């Protein structure tokens, strides 16, 4: 059995006349930790939106666990085990923290289980996901009342509750203090230890370098590097384009 979980070939996306992703090829192996980095405007967020199905691709293929994903809707991708968090947290603001995670359990986890989960199963699964991210004390809080770090954790809890095989963490640490960054990092590492492959999109290089086994670097819609983290970070082209001269 191949070790490859996600295989993207020739991914192409343009908005009007502006080419955002220009024939990107990359892959993620099962249980792998991949960092996706690049300067602002390099196409990282568009890549995440294309992979999760939030925006359609113009050309290329997305293969996930041996199945073509391109053309599937985001919820169908979630059913197959592809989860994402949003760069700017997008919880269901008027629901409680528990209700937010219950949605993922009810729909995605329920579908993956092949049956409708009982209320008790949904509650147990949602509480377990919230426990993993350290939000057990906030179950009854309205999502709109959470702090930034808790919103980030809630994003991850919702993704975890879908029981993913691959999690795309889109700038989960943006705007957080150093200690809070470490909290999220530890959380992602723990999730990876449980077998979940993770693509981390991040600007905080300290976090990316300590997390990722492999780095993929984008610049102006093209892949400019892909390889072991230390090798990529010392690549002169990456240093010049991404880290500056």
């Amino acid at each position, binding site marked *: 059995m191949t070790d490859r979980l996600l295989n993207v070939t020739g991914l192409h996306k343009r908005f009007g006349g502006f080419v955002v992703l220009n024939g990107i090829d990359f892959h993620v192996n099962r249980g792998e930790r991949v960092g996706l980095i690049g300067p602002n405007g390099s196409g990282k967020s568009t890549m995440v939106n294309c992979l999760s199905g*939030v925006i359609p691709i113009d050309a290329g293929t997305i293969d996930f666990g041996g199945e073509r994903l391109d053309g599937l809707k*985001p919820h169908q991708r*979630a059913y197959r085990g592809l989860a994402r968090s949003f760069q700017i947290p*997008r919880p269901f603001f*008027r*629901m409680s923290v528990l209700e937010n995670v219950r949605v993922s359990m009810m729909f*995605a*986890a329920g579908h993956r289980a092949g049956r409708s989960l009982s209320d008790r199963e949904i509650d147990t699964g949602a509480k377990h996901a919230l426990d993993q991210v350290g939000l057990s004390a906030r179950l009854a809080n309205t999502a709109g009342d959470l702090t930034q770090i808790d919103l980030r954790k809630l994003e991850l809890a919702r993704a975890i509750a879908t029981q993913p095989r691959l999690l795309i963490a889109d700038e989960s640490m943006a705007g957080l203090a150093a200690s809070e960054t470490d909290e999220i990092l530890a959380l992602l590492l723990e999730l990876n230890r449980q077998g979940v492959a993770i693509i981390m999109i991040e600007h905080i290089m300290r976090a990316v370098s300590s997390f990722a086994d492999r780095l993929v670097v984008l610049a102006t819609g093209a892949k400019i590097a892909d390889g072991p983290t230390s090798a990529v970070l010392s690549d002169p082209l990456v240093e010049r384009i991404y880290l500056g001269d």
Partner: protein
Amino acid sequence: MNRSNLLFLIGLVAAGLLILFGVRAMGGGYYQLVAFYILQYVVLATAWNILGGYGGYVNFGSAGFFAIGAYSTVFFNKFLGIQALKMIDLGLVTITAPFIPYLVVPAAVLAGALFAGLVGLGTGYLTLRLRGVFFAISTLALAVVAQTVVLNWSYVGGARGAYVIKPPAVAGFSSVTEFVLVSMLVIALVSIWIARTIERNKLGVGLLAIRDDEDSAECAGVPTLKLKLQATMISGALMGAAGAVFPFFVTYVDPIGAFNLVHTVNSIAMPLIGGMTHWAGPVVGAVLLGGVQQYFGSKNIITPELSLLVVGALMMVFVAVAPNGILGLFKRFWAWWRR
């Protein structure tokens, strides 16, 4: 059936009996009209709230769905020659005149619900990829298109309108009007039951997620288009069911009455004023607003046109001051009281 559902069902039946015998005790007549008017808006507001309140998709086409129900009754009444029937021979059973409404009215309700539901499904399929104001405008277009069709369709009366003559009597009821009122009462209670059931199952949870953030809901596994289509179909069907009974009560239907803007404005205003996140919100809104409209209308204090203006002003006040409606105010007061 679990205990909570059983208690709710008992409560609904009790409320229905209370309304029926209350109206009887008050002597029927004008009070039947008031009760019918309010119950009709309980259905329209509850139906609107399924898509608009839970899902956040504002439907400006309520009058269109209502009129589709009303005109399906007009159509079948004429097509099947129901008005002239003295008896219906079903082979094993012969239904005599006083029992014919027991067959005709429920059949009309089912037909109205089916047509409006199918139109809802079709409209939804074409428009639910649109969001926000674009969706709202497209539903407004539905009502305009349907009205244009009816205006130019002479078979159902065209611009002149059409009469639906009431049968002379219904077995077991003091009048045909009372029977029609009870029909609307049953539809209202069924609508409330459906809304509460939706609220507590996957459809309701999914719609609430869609209302807050549709992309985020999709990524959490919510099949947004499918749920929105289901909601539009159920909502349209309930509005159509209410519309199907309307001709039996008023006995005359014309495009101006059936497609009246009042239906649309009230079906939006009532959940907004009552509260949109709970099945009780539209009911509270319909009873209060409908009751006030009827009271002021009967005393000639306010004309129907002015009534619309008042409703519009009330909507603006509630949007600005109490966006969660009366139920939201009540919740806030209750939380403050318990502190």
